[in-house]
């Protein structure tokens, strides 16, 4: 029969028209990969338009999945397998396919109409004109194969046609030596209410599998051994899902309610949807009339003694600036998640960018410091949300969490933590000691500089807070010049004290000192880690430092940076973190800036590292085609 070739890791892209179920196919296949013990990362990509015209380039939806027997930190620069359900899907995704890679094309999606809509010249068809000779091309008429598998089905032609993604799923399950049972289980759950659809989908799935077995079109099957994952309970999770669970867990641990307010915006809306579903978990959600109201509502909840959270993206984050300043002034625990997307203005709403960093740090009037933290991977969004909530609640400060479109929609494996293993969260509740002559002193700071939290409903702690500068201790309105300076410094000092409690910065990978440190923050972690790993394998003198706390910066970072001759900061903006490091540590920093609404690829970072080591300048606009 077939030989089975072992592979270390594989990247598959499922691409088709928006209505063809590519997201479902990809996520089901990811599930079987996870069950097979592989590590994995995924990246969905769909049109910004809700119903882009069928067959057009704008209407293509794709799902990228990378799985392997080693640690997988990115969804892959390029793919080994491309499934193209129509001509537009091929045209928009062929550049991702490695030379010699496997291309599975649905012939029915390459008729004259589809070719024309995809913009191929009249009377040319890439499937037959030899232009794909660099790839291993498998052409199937999936529509026809599905039609014959469902010849006696009671379903309409249209309903039958819609099952063709299951054929692809079955075929790939065969190709990658996967059992069908887990997929059948998922299909049973999905179509539990529609017996005839369930039957058809199962039949087509099995037909796809059998087709692989009998057609002799494929030279070999593949097997990807298990990855050496730490023992534990796992699931796959997207960044936005992980945020929701992180906040719920933190509120639970702190013994407070979670109030969430959001206004619909891509790519943050999913957070609102999830929160609205989880009323049974002490979540109090609100769809606000705008982002200003969302953050103000969160501040209202925090005044009431609970955790206030909101999530948004660039345009909404801008609207929140004034209220964030108020939260700094009031010293109340709120968390604002900015799921960054390509800007300015509406920009490219579904595409990732890291260009809100300096806004998060400095985008407020007056001296208004707050904590800023960024997750590194989709699953890390859980830990980052928990940590953001912990800092907000224990330090009575607003916290900005900087995620992005890449983390929000992408997913990876998450080892679910035991609740007891998470750090406790202890808000500074007001006690009778915070009263003097029967009056509560809302701005009497503890040794960390943190003020006490007294909540409405508590007799004897009635107090007023507001946006006007306040007198030390009493919180009464004060225009005293020296008091103002003391209060500005007290608010800043509190964050400096927070910094002292943060885990000292460590080297993420490679030597602790030497020739070149590549410094990353946020979602570029995976590409940069993998690139440094590859460079170390090549024997290059390079290390990776990933920074999680962007304000205050963690202790020890300056000393670490001082140990390297050169510092390279690749990021998805025009060099904002590079700018920050230069200003903060007075070190020379090379900036590798990519501003295309796309994640960094490993290859790009490897190239940047090589050029940095050769002392080549000109790193501002180094990405190809710029």
């Amino acid at each position, binding site marked *: 029969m077939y030989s089975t070739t072992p592979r270390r890791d594989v990247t598959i892209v499922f691409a088709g028209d928006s209505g063809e179920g590519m997201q479902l196919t990809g996520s089901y296949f990811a599930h079987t990969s996870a069950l097979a013990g592989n590590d994995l990362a995924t990246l969905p990509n769909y049109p910004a338009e809700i119903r882009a015209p069928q067959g057009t380039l704008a209407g293509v939806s794709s799902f990228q999945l990378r799985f392997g027997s080693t640690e997988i930190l990115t969804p892959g620069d390029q793919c080994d397998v491309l499934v193209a359900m129509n001509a537009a899907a091929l045209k928009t995704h062929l550049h991702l396919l490695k030379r010699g890679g496997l291309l599975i094309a649905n012939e029915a999606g390459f008729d004259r109409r589809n070719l024309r809509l995809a913009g191929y010249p009249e009377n040319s068809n890439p499937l037959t004109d030899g232009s794909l000779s660099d790839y291993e091309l498998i052409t199937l008429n999936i529509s026809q194969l599905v039609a014959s598998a469902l010849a006696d089905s009671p379903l309409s032609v249209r309903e039958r046609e819609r099952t063709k993604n299951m054929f692809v799923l079955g075929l790939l399950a065969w190709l990658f030596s996967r059992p069908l049972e887990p997929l059948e289980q998922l299909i049973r759950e999905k179509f539990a209410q529609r017996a005839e659809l369930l039957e058809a989908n199962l039949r087509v799935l099995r037909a796809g599998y059998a087709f692989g077995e009998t057609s002799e079109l494929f030279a070999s099957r593949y097997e990807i051994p298990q990855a050496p994952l*730490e023992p534990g309970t796992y699931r796959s999770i997207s960044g936005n899902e992980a945020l929701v669970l992180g906040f719920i867990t933190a509120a639970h641990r702190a013994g407070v309610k979670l109030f969430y307010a959001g206004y619909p915006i891509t790519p943050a809306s999913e957070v609102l949807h999830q929160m609205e579903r989880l009323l049974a978990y002490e979540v109090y959600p609100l769809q606000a009339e705008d982002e200003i109201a969302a953050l103000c509502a969160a501040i209202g909840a925090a005044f009431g003694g609970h955790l206030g959270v909101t999530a948004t993206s660039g345009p909404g984050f801008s609207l929140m600036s004034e209220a964030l300043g108020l939260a700094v002034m009031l010293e109340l625990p709120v968390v604002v998640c900015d799921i960054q997307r390509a800007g300015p203005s509406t920009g490219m709403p579904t595409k990732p960018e890291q260009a809100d960093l300096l806004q998060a740090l400095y985008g407020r009037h007056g001296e208004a410091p707050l904590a800023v933290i960024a997750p590194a991977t989709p699953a890390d969004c859980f830990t980052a949300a928990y940590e953001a909530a912990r800092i907000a609640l224990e330090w009575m400060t607003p916290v900005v969490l900087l995620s992005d479109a890449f983390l929000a929609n992408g997913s990876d494996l998450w080892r679910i933590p035991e609740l007891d293993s998470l750090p406790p969260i202890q808000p500074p509740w007001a006690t009778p000691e915070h009263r003097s002559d029967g009056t509560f002193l809302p701005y009497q700071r503890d040794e960390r500089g943190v003020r006490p939290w007294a909540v409405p409903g508590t007799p004897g702690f009635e107090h007023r807070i507001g946006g006007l500068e306040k007198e030390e201790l009493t919180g009464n309105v004060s225009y005293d010049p020296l008091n103002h300076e003391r209060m500005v410094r007290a608010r800043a000092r509190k964050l400096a004290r927070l910094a002292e409690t943060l885990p000292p910065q460590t080297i993420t990978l490679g030597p602790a000192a030497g020739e070149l440190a590549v410094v990353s923050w946020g979602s570029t972690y995976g590409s940069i880690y993998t690139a440094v790993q590859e460079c170390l394998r090549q024997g290059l003198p390079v290390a990776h430092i990933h920074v999680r706390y962007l304000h205050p910066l963690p202790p020890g970072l300056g000393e670490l940076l001082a140990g390297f001759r050169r510092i390279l900061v690749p990021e998805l903006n025009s060099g904002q973190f590079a700018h920050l490091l230069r200003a903060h540590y007075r070190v020379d920093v090379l900036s590798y800036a990519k501003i295309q609404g796309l994640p960094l690829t490993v290859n790009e970072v490897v190239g940047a590292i090589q050029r940095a080591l050769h002392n080549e300048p000109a790193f501002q606009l180094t990405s190809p085609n710029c």
Partner: protein
Amino acid sequence: MNPLSNSPALTAKDYASDQEVRWCPGCGDYAILKQVQTVLAELQIPREQVVFLSGIGCSSRFPYYMGTYGLHGIHGRAPAFAYGLKLTRPELHVWIITGDGDGLSIGTNHLLHLLRRNLDVTVVLFNNQVYGLTKGQLSPTSPPGQVTPSSPWGSVEFPFNPVLLALSAGATFVARTLDRDLAHLRMVLTRAAQHRGAAFVEVYQNCPVFNDGAFARFTEKESKPWNALFVEHGKPLCFGPNGERTVRLRGTTPEVVPTEEVAPAELWVHDETDRAHAFLLAQLWDDPFPRPFGVLYADPSKPTYEELFFEQVQRARQRTTADLPALLRGRNWWHIGNGER
């Protein structure tokens, strides 16, 4: 004595903070502050249960002068603070203090949405038809032609009618009163404080510095009877020193006629639960009509936002038992290690 406890009854003074009140001498805000404190004492609402929220402007300094909980926020956003506070602490007695600039210019959006949602709070809008704190500019309630530093040639804008706006937004209690009629002010504030749902009170408030006498025709002894119509539930819409004039309807068109010319059965009798008539009443504005004051509309039957929200929470909790570890695991999870997969 407070009948509900052994502690001595609270007086109006108990609701004042120790802060010096810093409005201009003669400002109408003083009267409103005093009446609010009096109403709270009359209702014996425990101080710790009361929260005043405000935005920015002269009126928004209000929370600092109350011995209750308070939050002085940012311009126009007081209603938004109330969402988060009331959804997590529905038992609190929340007041929103705003003005014609704060509530009807920069914060109109939030005010309308709060009324639409019927959040159980009391909104008091101090209308002085001018920006006070920023020194006298035109506001969204300034009358046409008003000369201010920002309209030196006279305003060419039409004003909002706040009560009409509140009615349209879905407020379940809509009233208008004046700073100069203390008994009326206290009556309206008491009703508003007792209302279950979003209560909206517009107070005509004199700004002695930038817009002195803006409401004189409704407050001065000679002009008041002819220009102000004090409505009462179940009573006909009569005005004048001896009630000698009345407003009646011809179809949907109001007209002013001598009361004696109208048969008792033809009189327009105020029914504060009648929303359609409340719209007609709220539209009475200029000559020949008097300006209506009092509770124009009150509908205690509409469920509040909190009630509907917590019903949903109850339903959700009946359907799902909160199990955090199970939530974290989701539907598809697996073990690795110890041969458990």
